[in-house]
């Protein structure tokens, strides 16, 4: 493990904490005031918990906004580490002790122009946020970085998660690098790349006979009985904040400007809603000006509870039983689904869904036009972009960003059928020339 602690000579964006610790928990020194229920507003002290004691609603972090406002600036961010900790002032920091901070160089991933895919879609300006470039190949390294840092501040020694695969990879890797015990819970029938990509780190991998929603339920019950730090259960208020860094990075990488339209994959909806939250907060802290972007979401038809609710005006998200190759998005009961619908509506975005065949086509289109091999979630995002273009939902002049959240080698099963050698030849020039002449 490396730490992101900046040298004393330059500002330390992540060393935000000073002043007295909050009560009750391991001398926390924090820019988080309390946890508040998104549903009823009741507050609780900062602790590894995600459930409102009043209504069982979701708890979210409440930041010390005054403390953040006097510290954060474009200059401090630009002088920070080349990881998501350059936005440390804006993340839930629970300890002044740098040793609690986990940093495997996650985040600050490339934002690169995609002119060939843009032309295919009829756009003048398209950017790819390439989160395949994180340590374990997906954006989940972001949320795990923040959740494990919180876990270490809380003094937790065992870390765990319920996962569709990418999160399991990230938790297992980060646990290994920090010397923590880990238990990752996954559906028993995940893609082999995601199973191997979890087990290789040496922690415990629990394959559950059931789909992700069954895994998730089991995790919630284990979290309640074992006192472990489940990153997406009892550490969820902190975990979810990790995805805000995608939003902050987009703004900084576009020269402290907003994009006009962001298209992101939707599973639980947590990444989508936190990107939107980051756009709003960045303006609050004077880092950017103007109108926040349209936010559009992408699902696969075989697991489309959020898209279905978006289409049915005013409806709440109803759970579905997932059946799609886009396993990383196969959450039938999405925790932030209603919130994601609200964000898309408020910002003038849309939420679509595509067939599994279109997901495969989307992976191939992205690879063939931009040289980027994405896992199935990336195929879902690109395929939905194609659908949006066909439906007239993209504006040619909009500065559009597609979030590519995971690497293609994790899910080669999805595209292996159509990806074979184009020629088979003997080891001679004559044989090659003959094959070329076809």
């Amino acid at each position, binding site marked *: 493990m490396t730490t992101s602690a900046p040298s004393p000579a330059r500002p330390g964006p992540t060393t935000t904490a000073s002043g007295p610790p909050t009560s009750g928990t391991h001398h926390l020194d924090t820019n988080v005031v309390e946890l508040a229920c998104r549903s009823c507003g009741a507050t609780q002290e900062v602790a590894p918990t995600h459930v*409102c004691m009043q*209504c069982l609603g979701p708890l979210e972090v409440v930041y010390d906004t005054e403390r953040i406002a006097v510290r954060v600036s474009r200059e401090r961010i630009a002088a920070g580490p080349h990881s998501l900790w350059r936005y440390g002032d804006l993340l839930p920091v629970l300890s002044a002790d740098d040793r609690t901070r986990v940093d495997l160089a996650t985040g600050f991933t490339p934002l690169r122009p995609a002119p060939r895919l843009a032309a295919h879609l009829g756009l003048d300006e398209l950017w790819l946020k390439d989160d395949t470039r994180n340590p374990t190949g997906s954006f989940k390294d972001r949320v795990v970085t923040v959740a494990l840092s919180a876990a270490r501040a809380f003094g937790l020694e065992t870390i765990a998660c319920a996962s569709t695969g990418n999160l399991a990879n990230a938790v297992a890797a980060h646990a290994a690098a920090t010397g923590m015990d880990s238990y990752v819970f996954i559906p028993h029938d995940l893609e082999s790349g995601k199973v191997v990509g979890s087990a290789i780190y040496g922690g415990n991998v629990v394959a559950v006979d059931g789909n992700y*929603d069954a895994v*998730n*339920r089991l995790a919630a019950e284990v979290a309640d009985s074992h006192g472990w730090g489940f990153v997406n259960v009892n550490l969820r208020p902190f975990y979810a904040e990790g995805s805000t860094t995608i939003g902050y990075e987009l703004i900084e990488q576009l020269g402290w400007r907003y994009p006009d339209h962001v298209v992101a994959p939707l599973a*639980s909806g947590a990444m989508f809603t936190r990107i939107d939250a980051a756009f709003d907060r960045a303006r609050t802290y004077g880092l950017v000006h103007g109108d926040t972007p349209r936010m559009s979401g992408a699902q696969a038809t075989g697991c489309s509870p959020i898209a279905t609710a978006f289409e049915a005006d005013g409806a709440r998200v109803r759970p579905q039983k997932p059946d799609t190759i886009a396993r990383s998005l196969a959450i039938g009961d999405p*925790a932030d689904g209603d919130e994601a619908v609200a964000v898309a509506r408020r910002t003038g975005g849309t939420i679509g869904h595509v067939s599994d065949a279109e997901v495969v086509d989307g992976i191939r289109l992205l690879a063939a036009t931009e040289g980027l091999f994405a896992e199935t979630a990336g195929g879902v995002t690109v395929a939905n972009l194609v659908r949006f273009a066909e439906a007239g939902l993209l504006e040619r002049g909009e500065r559009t960003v597609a979030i590519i959240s995971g690497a293609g080698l994790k899910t080669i099963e999805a595209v292996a059928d159509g990806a074979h050698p184009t020629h088979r030849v003997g080891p001679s020039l004559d044989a090659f020339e003959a094959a070329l002449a076809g």
Partner: protein
Amino acid sequence: MPTVRIPTPLRNLSGGERTVTVPGSDLRAVVAGLEEAHPGFADRLLDEDGELRRFVNVFVRDEDVRFQEGLDTELAEDDTVSIVPAVAGG
């Protein structure tokens, strides 16, 4: 009698018990039985329309009752009812 697993946020109502047994042939009757034995449960589990609250998931025989008959989901004597806060995962 069906066994009900109580999550931490609701154990202040069950006197700290992790599980309680409650008579009832369907989920609605069990919720009523919980309320009778431990007043306060109905308010925490049901909304003003008498339906399960938005952030409460209930599993009977390891299956979400929203895929079964909701509050009318039938219960056998040896069934387990799990009450699980809805917001997790992702």
